């Protein structure tokens, strides 16, 4: 296949503990560390391995958002992607709009495979890949823990509640990644330098003919209700007693 497209979302780093603003207007994320959504990073790693095996010629990373997203695309280039595209917008973008943007990029780029994380760790929506596959009228394989390409088909092992499901999807297709698909590589300094010279194209959202929409409005944010702190027990005997008292044993 010629090309693999990988969608990267800029999110609050997974090590940052996000807190809600006291007035409920949003999350206090100003100035915190931002990173590539970890599931998307796994998608990029998989794309790079596909290329290194000789099953693809080019890996293109794409993102949607403000110009700050260039940082995450540069990281993607440093990991080994060949080229980057940022669809720049300062508007709030929902998963359906993201899917429309990626669909517009697909029409331009004609990738044989699109990879992205199963969910972003900020809004936890778990929607964009499935929506993209629907708009593209192509197969989807979500929650992938193994991906084997052969002859126009991808055999994907999916992490489902009942165990591991295997499906065959004809390419092109959208595959969303789960944690165990691979372990992304670390970026080395020379690659960061090299990445600065790799092409990063910026396109305005309007140029793609996609309107920024967010059908759903987030009207309030609050911290989760805390669980009451329980008691420290002295030993196993006391624990057994307490659980029997509650009728749990």
């Amino acid at each position, binding site marked *: 296949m010629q090309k693999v497209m990988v969608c990267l979302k800029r999110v609050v780093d997974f090590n940052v503990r996000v*807190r809600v603003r006291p007035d409920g207007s949003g999350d206090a994320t100003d100035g915190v560390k931002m990173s590539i959504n970890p599931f998307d990073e796994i998608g990029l790693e998989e794309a790079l391995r596909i290329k290194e095996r000789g099953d693809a010629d080019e890996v293109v990373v794409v993102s949607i958002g403000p110009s700050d997203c260039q940082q995450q695309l540069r990281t993607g280039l440093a990991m080994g992607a060949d080229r980057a595209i940022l669809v720049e917008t300062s508007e709030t973008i929902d998963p359906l709009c993201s899917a429309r943007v990626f669909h517009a990029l697909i029409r331009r780029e004609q990738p044989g495979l699109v990879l992205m994380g199963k969910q972003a760790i*900020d809004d936890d929506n778990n929607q964009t890949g499935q929506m993209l596959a629907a708009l593209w009228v192509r197969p989807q394989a979500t929650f992938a823990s193994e991906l084997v390409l052969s002859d126009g088909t991808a055999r994907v092992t999916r992490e489902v509640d009942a165990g591991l*499901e295997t499906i065959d999807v004809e390419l092109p297709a959208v595959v969303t990644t789960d944690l165990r698909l691979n372990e992304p590589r670390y970026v080395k300094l020379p690659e960061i330098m090299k990445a600065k010279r790799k092409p990063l194209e910026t396109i305005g959202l309007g140029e793609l003919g996609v309107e920024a929409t967010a059908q*759903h409005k987030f009207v309030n944010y609050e911290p989760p209700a805390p669980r009451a702190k329980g008691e420290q027990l002295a030993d196993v005997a006391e624990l057994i007693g*307490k*659980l029997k008292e509650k009728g749990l044993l």
Partner: protein
Amino acid sequence: MGRILIVAEHDGSTLNASTAKCITCAETIDNDGIDVVVFASDGAAVCEQTSALAGVSRVLRIDNAANEHALAAILAPQIAALAGDYSHVFGPSTTFGKDLMPRVAALLGVGQVSDIMEVLDTHRFRRPIYAGNAIATVDAPPDHILIATVRTASYSAAASGGSAEIETRHLDVELPDHTRFVKLDADETGRPDLQSAARVVSGGRALGSSANFELIFGLAEKLGAAVGASRAAVDAGYVPNDLQVGQTGKIIAPDLYFAIGISGAIQHLTGIKDAGTIVAINKDPEAPIFEVADYGLVGDLFQIVPELENALD
């Protein structure tokens, strides 16, 4: 008001408990009726079970050889074809519903509300974001059909005692053949299912190895409990990913939960915060897990767990 459609999750013979939880959620919305649709190659048994749930107005039986396995690309266009009669279409926030419902939403050109944990109004919901660090209130446009997944841990299962009419439907929808089921390697351990078990014993990184994790399996067997694990234990390779409890794994609400050698990262706590009683065993008295545990034991798990197992004899 409108009618609500729920997409049944099942394995071909047995209805998954997640469906009964979606019904409980749907009942908190003003509605003109709650229908459940069963897609199968032969849906007789599953439709009978669905019809017996209280709160169901009608069961739609859609038999088709192509529906033998729940493939999103096959089911989504059929659901989209039914959707015109409904104000809301719900699926469970299990891997089945998460895979399927966004594809339905996109076919209908609307957004999706993921992981409803509370209904505030017909088009206003609460849902967790940032791995449960924040609860957002979401408004959806009332003039669009509402597609959503229901966070099953937030709802109890609808009771039995219903006798809804079962209506067989034939849908004239073109189905793709670009996606094919190959196999399902089910967890054949004989242990209860992690997602629905009344008791769960989970182990963390402190177990130290795959071999030591046998301690967790042993205690679980004694308790008739399902086995879970923290993301750290999964990442370390002690157990497979399908045992992972937490925001990026399974979100569960057992009556009794044991967190053994689990420090209590927020993403794990998100997965268990609706558990009935939480017991934590950890050598670090400062571990965050003790902040949410009903009962805590500070000490060496390699001592406490065997002791606990003996005491259960």
